[in-house]
């Protein structure tokens, strides 16, 4: 791809996002818009967790905690500070990026000690971390405590959410198809062999974890500024589990799989609303069915286009 086509492509894509955003806001049913935006936020969450749980093979259970840090950090800037973000064309962009940065820093602090340990420690540590973060928010009165934080400017929209979803996808896609990507995958495949080939396994676990936390924080910031209201229970353990389900269902290590998982986990409960109180029962049953049908997840380790290529082309 030449520079020229790249910039034209980017311009067209951004214009298209803006156009769709405009039409949605003008003409679409607000319920539909809400579902579409929730899908976009789920995409960012699923794609980012896939790097750690799918590619590096480390089981993290604290994604909601990082999302929460991103959400609260960004509202500190937009809602509780005197900075006026809305005059600049970047809008909430910088506040959301700051939320991602804070989540990445938290990821570094949590990951550095716990990723050096082997086995399931990470699952336990991240589970504990998620709870600690939630309880911390619960006890901080200046950010609303248990009552939550109302009055967040609702500046997040289809444009921002899907712009970030696209950035996340391209980032992950390029990262994993590179030397660093091979290093991260080798951790999942065989840690001892990776070390013997000169890969600093502990370092790349942390790298993957920090990147993943960054995008979780971005998702949190976008989410807060879409909802206009957040409270600590928004970022509880259930949400972490939901993101894990996206990755496991989609296929560990497949980014198109994680995207598909994110869409399924978000859309399925909506489509099942006709079943009223049986909704979540049917939802859970369908998750079980998918896992029985494809224990490796819908995509396995493959990306969607691998299924359309002929054998031998690889």
């Amino acid at each position: 791809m030449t520079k020229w086509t790249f910039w034209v492509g980017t311009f067209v894509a951004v214009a298209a996002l803006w156009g769709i955003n405009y039409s949605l806001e003008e003409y679409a049913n607000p319920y539909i818009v809400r579902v579409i935006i929730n899908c976009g936020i789920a995409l960012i969450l699923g794609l980012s967790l896939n790097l750690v749980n799918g590619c590096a093979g480390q089981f993290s259970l604290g994604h909601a905690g990082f999302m929460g840090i991103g959400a609260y950090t960004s509202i500190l800037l937009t809602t509780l500070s005197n900075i006026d973000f809305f005059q600049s064309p970047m809008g909430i962009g910088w506040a959301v990026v700051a939320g991602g940065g804070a989540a990445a820093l938290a990821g570094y602090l949590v990951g550095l000690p716990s990723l050096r340990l082997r086995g399931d420690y990470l699952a336990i540590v991240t589970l504990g971390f998620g709870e600690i973060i939630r309880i911390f928010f619960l006890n901080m009165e200046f950010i609303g405590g248990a009552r939550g934080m109302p009055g967040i400017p609702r500046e997040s929209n289809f444009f921002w959410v899907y712009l970030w979803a696209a950035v996340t996808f391209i980032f992950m896609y390029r990262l994993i198809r590179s030397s660093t990507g091979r290093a991260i995958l080798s951790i999942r495949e065989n840690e001892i062999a990776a070390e013997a080939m000169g890969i600093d396994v502990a370092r790349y676990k942390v790298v993957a974890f920090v990147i993943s936390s960054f995008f979780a924080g971005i998702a949190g910031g976008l989410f807060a500024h879409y909802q206009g209201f957040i409270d600590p229970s928004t970022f509880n353990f259930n949400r972490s589990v939901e993101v894990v389900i996206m990755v496991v269902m989609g296929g560990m290590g497949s980014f198109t799989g994680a995207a598909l998982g994110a869409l399924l986990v978000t859309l399925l409960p909506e489509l099942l609303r006709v079943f009223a109180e049986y909704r979540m029962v049917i939802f859970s049953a369908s998750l079980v069915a998918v896992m029985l049908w494809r224990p490796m997840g819908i995509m396995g380790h493959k990306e969607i286009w691998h299924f359309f290529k002929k054998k031998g082309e690889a």
Partner: protein
Amino acid sequence: MNSVGHFKVQDLSISFGGLKAVSKFNLELKPMSLTGLIGPNGAGKTTVFNLVTGVYPPDNGTLDLDGSNLNGKEPCQIAKAGIARTFQNIRLCGEMTVLENVMLSYHMKKPYSLLDTLLRTPKFYAQEKKVTEEAMALLKVMKLDSKAQSLSRSLSYGNQRRLEIARALGTSPRVLLLDEPAAGLNSQEKVELMHTIAEIRDKFKVTVLLIEHDMKLVMGICERITVLDHGEVIAEGLPKEIRENKKVIEAYLGVSE
């Protein structure tokens, strides 16, 4: 002349619980030499490799490669210092292709930065191409080039062992440690592999230490041989000295194979 790849191991010891798996192990590998490490099952050969590559921290002993001390280093630092190995129980990245397994070894040379990766700069493409070509050349030496795009777990047992050697060579080692590379091959393949190993030593100017059960094979290509039994060196010398050594004969006859 080539003077790198001079590796000295002194007084290396480790015990697991009460078992002295390796005790007071001494070894000197001259640059570009080809040395055999033999001994009956459970003698401690693989443990020596694990100690030398930092998988287990030794209770005692010093490691010295070309004058620099490798004690207490992490396995990845030892690989960077120039010691590469293969594994007796094959350890490949099964869900990665044969080519990707070898390209992995080039990562420590930092071919390009994370920024190059994300922006897909010309440097990214150029370096990726270069690494691919070099990895393909290694696969060719191990006669695996036609399988480059297959998943490594789909390879036959013998080919997986060859891939382990190609991958180890990708780190541009000074010292190459091979743990029973001929295990599971038929006698024809074994002989071929031994030739390949001798070729590798000459082509890549690397010091080789080879673990192998089969005395005849080792005698055929190694210049010197060290014999381990119950964690201790019971003999060291030229192949013909080893062949006539009483202790060695006893150790081997004492074990039913």
